[in-house]
């Protein structure tokens, strides 16, 4: 199965891909003023999400925040901002993304932590959100694609993968790839989420377009290696140009603003502080309660002990101890 075949079966392609015209028309239908305010809401969401997950690893928080943002963007295609206020949808989207991206966060903790919010507030629009998403929850991001391309480019740089007509010597190319990686990632984490590229392009196109911005010479050479034959090469390059020009409309350095954002930042920080300590224990208690099985608590104690011993053991491991949160 090729990457393309797989992508064409995804709901992202079947339900959530549009031409610029059809998307504009839909948005007009839903709400004439939607687009700008969605961007505003999305900006806030991104900030909140990024802040709230600052302590988790790069790819993890990347996809959870990015998923929440796409949910919001998809939701407001068919729901009016006049009807549903972005801040409430935003909290719900962040919470719901923790479910769909396997990063669950207890609802009560989530609500307590962000303050001025009850669990009911968060849940109030959950169903609405899922309906607006047409019950499709899978979002295909370009982040993994970038890691893959960078690995391949690095392997070309150091000769593990032979590449003819390499215009740079190994070390220089390695440095270039590294720089391009960092810059491209910034575009994926910001520009790609705040513009409409997810609606118009595939994840691999978005990824390549971000590399095109980051290092045009490198990317042009890379595409030439992968697709030596015309007219495909030129066709692909044109698509990437289109995508990158949309990406450039929101530079990674542009700062969102507004009171809403400040408030969200504050909430997100609080949320973050409340997150880790004792979570496992509360969860264990909750589980024991639910299962109502005798001896469950004993089992939990034993398990915690095992886990402590395990992390002591794994402390010596090459990769350090296993993470003990957020498993799913």
């Amino acid at each position, binding site marked *: *199965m090729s990457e*393309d075949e*797989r*992508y*064409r*079966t*995804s*709901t992202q*392609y*079947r*339900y*959530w891909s*549009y031409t610029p015209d*059809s998307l504009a*028309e*839909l948005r007009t*239908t839903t*709400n004439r*003023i939607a687009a700008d305010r969605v961007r505003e809401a999305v900006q806030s969401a991104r900030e909140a999400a990024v802040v709230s997950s600052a302590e988790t*690893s790069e*790819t*993890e928080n990347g996809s959870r925040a990015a998923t929440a943002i796409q949910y919001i963007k998809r*939701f407001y295609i*068919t*729901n*009016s901002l*006049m*009807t549903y206020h972005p801040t409430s949808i935003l909290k719900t989207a962040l919470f719901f993304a923790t*479910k769909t991206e*396997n990063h669950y966060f207890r*609802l009560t903790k989530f609500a307590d932590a962000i303050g001025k919010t009850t*669990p009911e507030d968060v*849940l109030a629009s959950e*169903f609405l959100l899922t*309906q*607006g998403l*047409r*019950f499709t*929850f*899978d979002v295909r991001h370009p982040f*993994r694609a970038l890691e893959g391309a960078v690995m391949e480019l690095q392997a070309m740089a150091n000769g593990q993968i032979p590449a003819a007509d390499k215009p740079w010597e190994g070390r220089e190319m390695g440095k270039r790839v590294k720089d391009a990686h960092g810059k491209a990632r910034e575009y994926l984490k910001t520009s790609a989420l705040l513009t409409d590229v997810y609606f*118009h392009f*595939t994840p*691999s*196109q978005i990824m*390549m377009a971000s590399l095109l911005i980051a290092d045009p010479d490198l990317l042009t050479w890379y595409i030439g290696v992968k697709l030596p034959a015309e007219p495909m090469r030129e066709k*692909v390059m044109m*698509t990437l140009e289109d*995508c990158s020009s949309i990406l450039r409309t929101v530079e990674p350095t542009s700062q969102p603003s507004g009171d809403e954002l400040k408030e969200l930042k504050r909430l997100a920080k609080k949320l973050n502080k409340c997150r880790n300590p004792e979570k496992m224990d509360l969860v264990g208690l909750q589980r024991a309660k639910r*299962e109502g*099985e005798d001896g469950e608590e004993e089992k939990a104690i034993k398990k915690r002990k*095992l*886990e402590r011993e*395990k992390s002591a*053991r*794994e402390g010596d491991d090459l990769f350090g101890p*296993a*993470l003990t949160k957020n*498993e*799913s």
Partner: protein
Amino acid sequence: MAVSPLVFPPAPADKNAGAKLSKLSNQGFNGAAPEGPSASSGTRDLAEQMNEEEKQKYVKGKKLGEGTYANVYLGHLRDDPKRLVAIKKIKIQKEYTEGMAPDAVRELKHLQEISHPNIISLLSVFSSKDQNLNLVLEYLPLGDLEMLIKDVEGVRYGAADIKAWMGMLSRAIWFCHENFVLHRDIKPNNLLIAADGEVKLADFGLARSFSDPYRIMTSNVITRWYRPPELLFGAKHYSGAVDIWSVGLVFAELVIRTPYIAGDTEVGQVNLICQAVGTPTEENWPGVSKLPEYAVPDPPNPIRGRDQYLGTFGTAGQEGVDLLMAMLILDPRKRITAREVLQHPWWASEPKPTRKQDLPRKEGGAEKIGEDLKRRPGILDDERGAKVARKLDFGKM
């Protein structure tokens, strides 16, 4: 990259009749597209209208099964009463107060993406007034594999039939893995049978996408009898190999017509694996003793040899036994992959798999689909009582 982005989404296949956005954008909604902000004029939002339209396509009929997690109804298309569907209505659960149930989220997320002849089709999703989720699934009236396996008196089948069923299961799991989805609950009563005899893998309530490197997963998945040793030992990083072990045990069960490794507890399950397959040790599985809950009875049993397998599973033939042994390799890194399963010489050897319309069948499947679809994932049937909660809840993640 060959996909041109500048196209409308393809016209929805009948599977996803909900995909009407592109059409809507051209025509407005039934000629009543709101001119301005829809709410201010009292019109329902587009999303709500679409949901209503979806709901109107189906007629809900008699109840096929009732459970704590879901009720299952027989239904049909309003326009074509001969086209039957199963409507799984997810109940709002009293004990789960955190919104949409985890099982439903997982099931929806993955079934929406996956379309394959050997995987149950999700035809549509809509919500009813009370905010209950309704999953419209294809109607599979011939019960499940467990039903056939258990009815030793009433249903006779042979090596060719087993090969046909295993072929369909193997293609289903290959497709899941090819799409980076782990099913994590393969067992005979999740393998439903369509009117034409096609086997369909169902119940994606425990499924998840492959994890990123270093990102941990819970080991508390897969119904115990079908759970591989790495999960019983508490591994937090694992692969499609977990599903393959389950497939192997379904294979074994099809041959001997009783669950092959049926432990009463997790410890019991490990002990039985040590007897039936062999004891996992550092020799046959480097690193196993470092798994968090590694514990095996002393003294270790050697890995069971081919002759012993031939003694028990001889009906499957030499090649069949070879495949079974490859699926039940203790070390998940050495276990056969779904792709390799499909390339195995067993499929091409005699006997040829039975054509699906000639496969043995059994009446009474309508009740069975009701039973199967309403069940919580991850549990054994005889444990469906009050003391068993679902194996996976978000709290443990």
